[in-house]
């Protein structure tokens, strides 16, 4: 009721103050969010863990099985479960007052802190067992995540520059328009050259598989082939060459877009399945520990 009353006082539903703050523009990236709030929290967590590890006399030796080891393990397990919930949070916007940027920020820094917490939890005892499997999986998840942070921080600019204010739909429409012109322009060409154009027009522009998509290199590109082979100084040939050049530029933009998007997303195809494997391994790790206790 108190918030309702406060809302009354500003004339609206109470969002005015909140909106004004927002409009004052919270214009910072997820890494810098709230003056690196989560970085400091993560550093604090790591510092405390290390201090505990050094100061507490663990008997017979530092190990996941001492009370301190259990504490670190519990913190780590809870963190991993919470971090994996980002996938749900991202797809569930309402209800609740929260921001995905804050969640991402916390996800990154707390995730990184797991390197310290997890490692201390092992007590540096590594072996060929399910416990180490969980540890290695965790590190792999974290390293793919680091790649993710790196591409998120560096690639968006080139994505924007490549787009040149065009939407995906407009890029495809531009290609269709070029193709329509190519089709009629190629009518006067000879059989062999016309076939090259037909092949270029007929080729699926997405052909080439994931590798081509990631590298942006399409060795089988029929447009490039046609461009190389069609020569001559006839009016038709010049026009077709010009159009093929336009087409290959348009293809380059579309493929560039695909490449950058693929690089921004590819790591998720490892990060997420590994997370699921990690949670499975962790479950096995926890059960086995309790079973053999």
């Amino acid at each position, binding site marked *: 009721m108190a918030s309702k009353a406060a809302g009354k*006082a*500003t*004339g*609206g*539903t109470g*969002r*005015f103050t*909140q*909106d004004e703050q*927002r*409009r*004052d*523009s*919270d*214009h*910072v*990236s*997820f*890494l*810098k*969010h709230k003056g690196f709030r989560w970085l400091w929290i993560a550093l604090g967590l790591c510092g405390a863990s290390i201090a505990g590890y050094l100061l507490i006399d663990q008997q017979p030796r530092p190990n996941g099985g001492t009370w301190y080891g259990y504490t670190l393990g519990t913190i780590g397990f809870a963190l991993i479960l919470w971090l994996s919930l980002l996938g*749900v949070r*991202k*797809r*569930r*916007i*309402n*209800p*609740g*007052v*929260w*921001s*995905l*940027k804050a*969640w*991402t920020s916390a996800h990154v820094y707390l995730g990184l802190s797991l390197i310290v917490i997890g490692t201390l939890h092992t007590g540096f005892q590594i072996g060929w067992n399910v416990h180490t499997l969980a540890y290695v999986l965790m590190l792999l998840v974290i390293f793919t995540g680091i790649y993710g942070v790196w591409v*998120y*921080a560096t*690639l*968006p*600019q080139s*994505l*924007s520059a490549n*787009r040149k*204010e*065009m*939407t*995906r739909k407009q890029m495809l429409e531009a290609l269709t*328009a070029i193709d*329509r*012109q190519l089709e*009629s322009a190629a009518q006067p060409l000879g059989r062999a050259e016309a076939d090259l154009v037909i092949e270029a027009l007929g080729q699926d522009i997405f052909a080439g598989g994931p590798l081509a998509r990631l590298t942006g290199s399409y060795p089988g590109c029929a447009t490039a082939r046609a461009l190389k082979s069609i020569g001559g100084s006839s009016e038709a040939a010049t026009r077709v060459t010009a159009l093929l050049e336009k087409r290959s530029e348009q293809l380059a933009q579309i493929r560039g877009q695909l490449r950058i*998007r693929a690089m*921004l997303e590819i790591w998720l195809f490892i990060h997420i399945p590994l997370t699921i494997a990690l949670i499975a391994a962790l479950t096995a790790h926890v059960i086995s520990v309790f079973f053999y206790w």
Partner: protein
Amino acid sequence: MFKVAIIGSGPAGLSAAARAAALGLSHVLLEKTDHLSDTIYKYQKGKHVMATPSNLVLRSDIDFDAGKRETILGIWDEQIAGHKVNVKYHAEAKAIRGTGDPIPGSVQQIVSRARDGTKNVKEIQRHAPPYAIELTNGETVMAENVILAIGTQGNPNRMRCPGADLPHVQYQLDDPAEYVDEHIVIVGTGDAGIENARGLAEDPAQRNTVSILNRGTEFPTAKAANVSALMADHEAGKLTVRNESETKSIEPGWITLTTRDGEIRIRCDRIIARIGSAPPRAFVEECGIEFTSEDRGAFPKLSPVFESTAPGIFVIGALAGYPLIKHCMNQGHDVIEFINGNTDLKPADEPIIAAKFANLPGNRSTEEWLEFLRANVSILNGMNPLQMREFMLDSEAKFYAPGEVIFERNAPGSSLFGIASGSVAVEVNPADPSITIPIETGSIFGEVGLISGRRRGATIRAAEDTIVVEISRLAALKLQSQVPSAKKAIERISIERQLLQMFGSGLTREDVAPLVEAAQVQEKRAGEIVVTEGADDKDVYIIRRGSMIVEKQIGDRPVFLSYLPAGSYFGEMAVVDGSTRTATVKAAIKSEVIRLPGEGFLELLEKNPRLRERALKDMEGRRATNAFIEGQKDSFSGAVDLYSKTAQFLVDNGIGEATDVLLIDEKLCIGCDNCEKACADSHDGLSRLDREAGKTYAHLHVPTSCRHCEHPHCMADCPPNAIKRGPDGEVFIDETCIGCGNCQRNCPYGVIRMDAKPPKKPSLLQWMLFGKGPGPGEASYSWRKKAAEAEGVQKPKQAIKCDMCSGIDGGPACVRACPTGAAIRVSPDKFLTFTKLTEDAE
């Protein structure tokens, strides 16, 4: 000779004709086409027609309920036939003249304006009924009374060259597939002309040779998408765009064109002219009907029984200012009753108006209340009872006890208040609510919100038992166009208040009276310069609506200094210290300024030393900003350039008139479209923003998304008045939307879409675990279509747009759902500053 002739067979005309037939009056219904109700007939096939307002009862001899266009037209055709209405098709009225004696002293003045601004006044002597209605086919219809129900659609502009009256010149194209093997010339390069040309050339199997004539080389009146599609067709050889060409003459089989390179004569079997349409005002005025003002939006002057200034000619429907079908039909019914002598008839909206007065103290009847408001609120004095009724439909009467808050400072609101009894107190100083200024009975308040479109400047409380009438923005605009004296009064009061507000509480009305007298309201178009750097004029300006940008020439190019929202003033520096103008001020968007002569301002300053102090202090602040940016220019010229160009870019993209706008920092945007998905999931499964579309400068991207303009363009022409400003300042469309698409056409930023609300999706959990449904975000069109078919209920297409997530905790979902912080929502007065525009977010 008929007792009554009804011109136009839209909902209003049909309803009138049906009533006349039911009463057994001798009547004729004149329709220019070969079918009834042409406007609705031209709706796209299967369109869902709405029946708003739902609280208004229908009073008509023909039925109407929301439904498909075909169903409604079918019912009307059947019932018009059933009532044995005398319909005359292909009867287009050309002129209406009285055939009786000249009416002494009744002269109609018609003012026509040429493009160069000169006025031409023509006078017409009115004659008494009966009226002779001349039709375009040469026939004449005689009637004692005429009901004009022609709507506002108007007639297509006709070609005027020799041969324009040949039968192969047409003004409409119903089905492009109808024509084969023809040489067709399209005249006019608006959207209609371009769409027709492309339609005719679309299928090569039709073997049409299509040319489209463009007077110039640009396409100023067409949508960009249409123009690029047309040019692509031209390049592909499907049709020919002939630039700088005009028609000289037409003959069967041929057309002669004047082009840049001289005359050419080309084959032509058909001409389709799409050169706009003329509003029906000229025709209506020629009939002897006076309008309330010269304003483009003005309506005919009418009596309480819809009679115009020409006795015996009645005006109803959209032309009278009632665009909704139900209103039109009720008026059709009522006007025949009036003509038939039924004077006791109460309008159908009586219960709606009565409900508005139900909670007021003082037991008055509806008529008494209307008269009470009209007589007591000075700006309403000039209205007649019919206007008062119409006015009251969009207004509210409210009672406030002493001390009760009427509105709060910073609350959004664009309505105007009139005090019918009692008085109110304005808390002019937010820090000390005890300092108040009274406003007395008969006066108005809230005019700043109405004019500037910005938030309320002060809290206002009732000082005693007070009855006010709250006039909605729409009703206030109508009032100003109908009653010129009201417009003047509002203007004067607003100038006075703005002057008082500008200088705090130190001044009195007497102090500013001479300045108010000398003040002038000037309209400035976007980009127009108000003050030029280096000039030595001395006037002071207050921004009344819109916004301005301040620029200074540094080195060889203009540098953006600051953004001035409505309510700011400028130009005082030159007056106070006698210098020349230090910077250029120009309108960011279409704006209005109040020009105060420098001498008057100087006098005021001399009389009020405290005011002078304040002005000097304000000036210091501005000088500091200017000096800061000039100083930066030497050390960081890159940053200043970036700031200046980014600010200009944002202003060019409509940020200058925005109140809350979504921007995307493309240095941070990973293209995940989570903003769009969150938007769709927060609002019935449809996204109200298009992230990718829109312009980008220096990695700042303005996506296609609502700017919540100070003066929303979308509100301009909404028949059910469904677009409103909500409690948090958001511009939203409520459920009374009839799906007409006017707002979509009026929005310069393309942020409104027309779509049907899709069925509910399976839950997120079901999708994550079992893959059920389309998942987060907007479902594909095919999924929505299939799900809607499975559900079986056809939902109408309605206008949808951003509502700033009103009613959702935490605010806009687009911003909250951005994982990297790329999406921000800002307001121009806070964001168009040097610090904000040059800060490094990464």
